[in-house]
């Protein structure tokens, strides 16, 4: 499958081969099972099943995917910079995972529903969420205050793997509503759950696969294997490619080059069609790479090599699409336009973030319950009086 000059890291397909020339992690990354429609060099590859699914993506559509990825990367880089400047407490970068997120996200229909962990800014973008709102929680101002129903995009989940069950349950609800298998493209719906390689070890994820399988729920499990769970390589979670997790549960599974936006689009589209038509769940392993640190608090030099980072830099998801766009007739002015748009966007993100003001402390008592709870009310009243006592008086703190 791989038509590049970059050497394959896998000697024995299907079995994890760590420790190759200092590149410890790309476990079984590129082998015959990997679905790829666009090589790291930006050349199209034909695939019997999946090429047909990207045929209707004309140059304009491809440019749209490029714009998505470029703007998300610019947003992500800006957020990282804002953290460095002290404007954010923490930032989990999606750098390097744009193809997996945009490709899969653009395969979604408006009525589909998405549950993610905390790094899926690219998916959020495809759901029309104002990405600036994601900054709030990393600035310590809310716990994820966007309107999830307005975007069919649930709040980020920080407890690893939990939301795979929520996605499955939501899909079970869709099934009960009869919004599966009607054949009406405006009605049939599906759910996608995004999680990482590390998350596959959590019981909740296995339980989600069980529930989805036995109920044939319309849910797609989109696992971004970015090779690392903080400092632990995927080999700490599995001895075989993660795609094999699905099979044991009776869930059709595919392994896709997660840095190939076309392939990610194609396999997700197929999985969503299966789900919406009543064919049940699919497990997708998108083989990608966390090009940045785990978060801005992390120091990857403690656990991974420069050689490995270089290896993956040659597989940058945006660079390869750019090559394809140029080959298919996109002029320099298009890229200049995106560049200019990115800069304006970044300035806007920066200004927005800096203008955010802290919530009033009394708001900590809001929304603990939907109905009145006397203890919370009493504590709120106590707190208001207590704070009022400081007016005009210097606090000790």
């Amino acid at each position, binding site marked *: 499958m791989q038509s590049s000059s970059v050497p394959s890291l896998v000697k024995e397909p299907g079995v994890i081969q760590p420790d190759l020339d200092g590149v410890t992690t790309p476990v079984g990354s590129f082998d015959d099972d990997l679905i790829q429609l666009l090589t790291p060099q930006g050349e199209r590859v034909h695939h019997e099943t999946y090429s047909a699914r990207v045929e209707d993506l004309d140059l304009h559509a491809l440019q749209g995917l490029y714009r998505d990825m470029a703007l998300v990367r610019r947003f992500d880089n800006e957020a990282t910079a804002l953290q460095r400047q002290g404007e954010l*407490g*923490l930032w989990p970068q999606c750098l390097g995972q744009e193809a997996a997120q945009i490709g899969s996200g653009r395969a979604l229909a408006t009525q589909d529903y998405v549950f993610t962990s905390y790094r899926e800014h690219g998916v959020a973008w495809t759901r029309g969420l104002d990405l600036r709102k994601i900054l709030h*929680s*990393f*600035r*310590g*101002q*809310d*716990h994820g205050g966007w309107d999830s129903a307005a975007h069919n995009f649930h709040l980020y989940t*920080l*407890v*690893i*793997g939990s939301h795979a069950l929520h996605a499955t349950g939501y899909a079970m609800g869709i099934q009960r509503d009869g919004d599966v298998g009607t054949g009406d493209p405006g009605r049939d719906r599906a759910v996608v759950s995004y999680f990482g390689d*590390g*998350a596959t*070890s*959590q*019981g*909740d994820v296995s339980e989600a696969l069980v529930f989805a399988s036995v109920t044939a729920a319309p849910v797609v499990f989109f696992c971004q294997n970015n090779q690392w*769970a*903080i*400092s*632990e390589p995927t080999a*700490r*979670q599995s001895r075989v490619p993660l795609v094999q997790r699905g099979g044991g549960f009776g869930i059709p599974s595919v392994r896709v080059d997660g840095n190939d936006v076309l392939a990610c689009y194609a396999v997700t589209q197929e999985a969503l069609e299966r789900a919406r038509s009543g064919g049940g769940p699919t497990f997708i392993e998108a083989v990608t790479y966390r090009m940045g640190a785990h978060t801005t*608090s992390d*120091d990857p030099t*403690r*656990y991974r090599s420069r050689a490995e980072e270089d290896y993956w830099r040659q597989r940058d998801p945006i660079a390869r699409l750019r090559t394809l766009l140029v080959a298919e007739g996109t002029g320099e002015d298009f890229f200049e336009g995106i560049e200019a748009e990115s800069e304006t966007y970044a300035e806007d993100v920066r200004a927005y973030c800096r203008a955010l003001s*802290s*919530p*009033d*402390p009394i*708001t*900590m*008592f809001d929304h*603990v319950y939907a109905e009145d*709870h006397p*203890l*919370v009310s009493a*504590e709120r009243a106590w*707190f208001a009086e*207590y*704070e009022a006592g*400081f007016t005009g008086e210097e*606090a*000790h*703190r």
Partner: protein
Amino acid sequence: MSASAIGTQRITMAKAINLGLRRALERDEKVMLMGQDIGALGGVFRVTDGLQKDFGEERVVDSPLAESGIIGTAIGLALAGYRPVCEIQFDGFIFPGYDQITTQLAKMHYRSRGRLNLPVVIRVPFGGGIGAVEHHSESPEALFAHTPGLRVVSPANPADAFTMIQQAIASPDPVLFFEPKARYWDKADIDVRAAGQALDLGGDTVGLHTARVVTPGTDITVAAYGPTVSTALAAAGVAGQEGTSVEVIDLRSISPIDFDTLIASVRRTGRLVVVHEAPVFFGAGAEIAARVTEHCFYSLQAPVLRVGGFHVPYPVANIEEEYLPNLDRVLHAIDSAMAH
């Protein structure tokens, strides 16, 4: 570098725990560490820094990302004769392992009529004040203190951290070891060699559950543990300048609680304020207030007051200072108690 070869040095609490773990690994080959990112990374707080390098991947294990798996397999390892020390990366992530802790770990000795021991330690960086995102600032200790069969302790300073982690590992019972993460970088002078010798002489676990009077006082007792001990001490300093003599007690242990020390203090001072970060509703302070009232009713000159978290999920970082039992809130409680 052997932990026991080091004399007096100025070290952080994180380093003190590291040295305590190192000494435990050196002295008992059955001791092993397990957890997420504790190997090459040295843990997200670097508490296990360098230990995998020195003791190998077999004894310092980067676990798969599953808390139930970590604790469940630690139970199995303990049944096979090992002494696993599990690191839970953050307080809020202990819950996937909660089932194993409460239904299995806590009860095995009891169910086996004493035939089986589970000497498992679960280290949990806990508490807030570090500006973190959700699930990274919680204080769930009451849930574990409420579970018979578990011992629950929390050091407040580097010297205690060094000693108590080794005592927890030596304990034949499961121990929840709550590390105040906001205090990880507080420094103190420790004579590690002397502390090690004291451990050898004193017996493996003697003193693990003993409270300590940190500052003697006569007007009011303030009891705290883990992250709030330093707040209590600061309050004692301010109150002292204003003429109130505060006795600060570092409880060090939440299950069991050293009521002898506490009751003796309250009988002298007649007043008690309990400070913890956890929500006060059904918190450790509630148990303390009830028991102290039972035992000190005729000595009390004011109701026992509690300062702690409100009955709300841990709030966003921007306003956590107002949620936490800070210096002003402790002083406020002291004033209220003194006003009686």
